[in-house]
């Protein structure tokens, strides 16, 4: 009698998992429907070239959004990613202008180091200084952007100033696929491995899911939170190097406003803004959906000015959908 209610049926998948699978399937289905509609009006949509274009366009977004996802899992937000991209892009390209003989791995390492440093400042302000993440990164967003201007005194680094090797870094395809896509895939695999198979990765979910319980369980939440901002900065640093290489320029407004997309991709992909849950597949699907929409709008010749509105609408739909699912789940009771 007493076990009557305790007998949780041995389902292979729980309700919550089902919901997130459903979410991922839902986005995938939405992408397919969109693709079908667009290809009716613009058959070029289904070409391999176009597909590669979409992937190229979202590679940098995926890299940064993965860092953003880890931050969101801990109930935070990193609005400074766009400025970190801008600053590393500017500093690394400047270095390459000054020292054109620098090997590419060194440029990448420099980008990673700069990004991690900027991220560490965020982490310190948030984890040690107890400044709410939105305020801290809103502040550093404008500080880091101001530093880009101060650094360059408003001037640009142009394609003609950049060494040939750097311009090819993102676009060359020595392995048949553009490097940029390979970078994104590599980051994706590393983040997936880290989140699923290391204790440090699991701690991120624990801290986001229940910070008080994490403290009771002996997890040092401060360190975990510091770490996710460093990682977010690290990935933004990598993205800065790739951005400068891909667009063959570093400007004062590089990646301006990009933070919105890095938040949109995880949120659309089912990463819970209240923390604790989310996975890499969702982020990739979310980024892919954003990429497909951008691409389709161009192909079916809808004014690119609708792009921004569509993106905002998508975020709203995603959170409304989440709320509806959550409510349904709560109604069924636990």
């Amino acid at each position: 009698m007493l076990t009557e209610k305790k007998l949780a049926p041995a389902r292979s998948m729980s309700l919550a998992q089902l919901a997130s699978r459903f979410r991922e399937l839902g986005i995938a289905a939405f992408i397919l429907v969109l693709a079908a509609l667009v290809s009716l009006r613009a058959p070029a949509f289904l070409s391999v070239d176009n597909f590669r274009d979409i992937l190229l366009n979202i590679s940098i977004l995926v890299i940064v959004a993965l860092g953003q996802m880890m931050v969101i899992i801990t109930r935070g937000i990193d609005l400074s990613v766009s400025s970190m991209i801008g600053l590393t892009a500017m500093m690394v390209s400047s270095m390459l202008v000054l020292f054109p003989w620098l090997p590419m791995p060194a440029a990448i390492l420099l980008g990673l180091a700069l990004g991690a440093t900027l991220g560490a400042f965020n982490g310190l302000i948030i984890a040690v200084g107890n400044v709410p993440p939105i305020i801290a990164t809103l502040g550093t967003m404008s500080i880091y952007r101001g530093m880009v201007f101060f650094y360059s005194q408003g001037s640009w680094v142009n394609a003609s100033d950049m060494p040939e090797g750097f311009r090819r870094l993102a676009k060359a395809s020595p392995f048949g696929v553009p490097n940029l896509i390979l970078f994104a895939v590599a980051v994706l695999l590393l983040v997936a491995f880290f989140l699923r198979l290391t204790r440090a990765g699991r701690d991120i979910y624990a801290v986001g899911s229940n910070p008080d319980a994490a403290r009771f369980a002996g997890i040092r939440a401060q360190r975990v939170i510091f770490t996710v901002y460093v990682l977010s900065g690290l990935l933004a640093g990598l993205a800065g190097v790739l951005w400068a290489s891909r667009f063959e320029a570093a400007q004062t407004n590089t990646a301006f406003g990009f933070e919105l997309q890095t938040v949109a991709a995880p949120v659309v992909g089912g990463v819970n803004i209240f923390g604790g849950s989310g996975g890499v597949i969702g982020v990739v699907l979310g980024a892919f959906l954003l990429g497909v929409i951008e691409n389709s709008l161009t192909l079916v010749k809808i004014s690119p000015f609708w792009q921004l509105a569509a993106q905002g609408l998508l975020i709203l739909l995603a959170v409304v959908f989440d709320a509806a699912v959550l409510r349904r789940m709560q109604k069924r009771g636990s």
Partner: protein
Amino acid sequence: MSDAAPVIEARGLSKAFGGVHALRDVRLAARAGEVLALLGENGAGKSTLIKIITGVYQPDAGEILLDGRPARFTDTRAALDQGVAAIYQEPSLFPDLDVAENIFVGRQPIRAGRVDWRTMYEEAGALLRRLGVRLDPRIKARELSVAQMQMVEIARAISVNARVLIMDEPTSSLTQGEVEELFVIVRQLRDSGAAIIFISHRLEELFALADRVTVLRDGAYVDTRPLAGVTTEDLIRLMVGRDLAELFPKQHVAAGELALEVEGLGLPGRFSDVSFELRRGEIVGMAGLVGAGRTEVAEALFGVMPAASGHIRIDGHEVTVSGPEQAMALGIGYVPEDRKQHGLVLAMSIAQNITLPTLRRFARMGWLSGAAERRSAAEDATRLEVKMSSLDQPASQLSGGNQQKVVLAKWLSTNPQVLILDEPTRGIDVGTKAAVHQLMSQLAAEGIAILMISSELPEILGMSDRILVMREGQISGRFSRAEATQERLMAAATGTG
């Protein structure tokens, strides 16, 4: 029982939160191979004490000795590393993680540098089977029932293989059978040489399990005794420090006309088919395990989370309660279980807290009259004998008992005809507790109908005219004052009658 040196010892511990003393010069010592019961009323300081021992809080004064050597745990990780583990009273599961990971969080098995999920699921499954729970370790904690959550927390504490294991109310939502299984395991752990500190409100559990008992009262140490030869009455006297008659001053009031009728009330997943009535001048007690759905029924009546089905009648008129605002207008008052989360706006002043539900009275065209508001608040605070330095003092600076008085003052100011009290004396000192009971009795005499939810059976038995017992979302027992005994209520609450 050996007189061996204690494994863990606390000496002279004191701790204050914002000027309110939670602990004053408290000591405690537990030896290897014994179960030490820690006893005290809600608010006596038990939870604070164990949180200091496990490094959640740092003491203001005093020290912790582990194996006779001073130990400083700056956080729970440090305590865990030294073999000191605990189940805390607050639910401390991770809703987004699965059962297995909840058990092994922070200590996931590692193989070849990677978290070994297979081993983790196997070990978690084995552990749960040992506890007699059939639960899929892959299920997310979010979907567990309260009792299942408690079992997972127990599994977590046991999996540590701690030398010192502290269990704060591990049985509050378990049925008799589950408690038995837990005790078998606790005894095994004890016999293998662990020191166990066990907190429970059910005295009979302590007699069944513990070797010695340490009693706290109002944040101070009272005594430590072997349980052999001690009676329940002795323990209650140590714990309460005064006579029970004084604590439960229930006057007999003849029940008047019907004030509230509830018929077939239901909310899927929370409670179903709840029917009862409440008459003027009556105090009806509502007993049951934690998670049985009592608070949910109260919140439905008050409109915080309205019921999906059923009828509510007030003074014979059918009403639908869709929100607290409307419930107030209907003459319903609700003193919630969680004083700090739901009862008070801690950062605001005493006066502002008291007038929050009745602000409309002091506003003309939305503009507040400060003088009228203060006058009214002062009256209410004086009536309840709130001890304060001024009406402008933030509620956060008051002791638990005085905070509860402010909450009561706030609801009395709305002139309720039906008053729902959810755990009205949780976490408050004995003196205030008696005062709250006195007030309840007086209010009933004035003709207010009172529904009192309580997890303390002595309080239920001492204060109620009639008693309802809830189990798993339904009313499982109805008793008159004369019929009710602790045993009968427990049987109805756990379904082992």
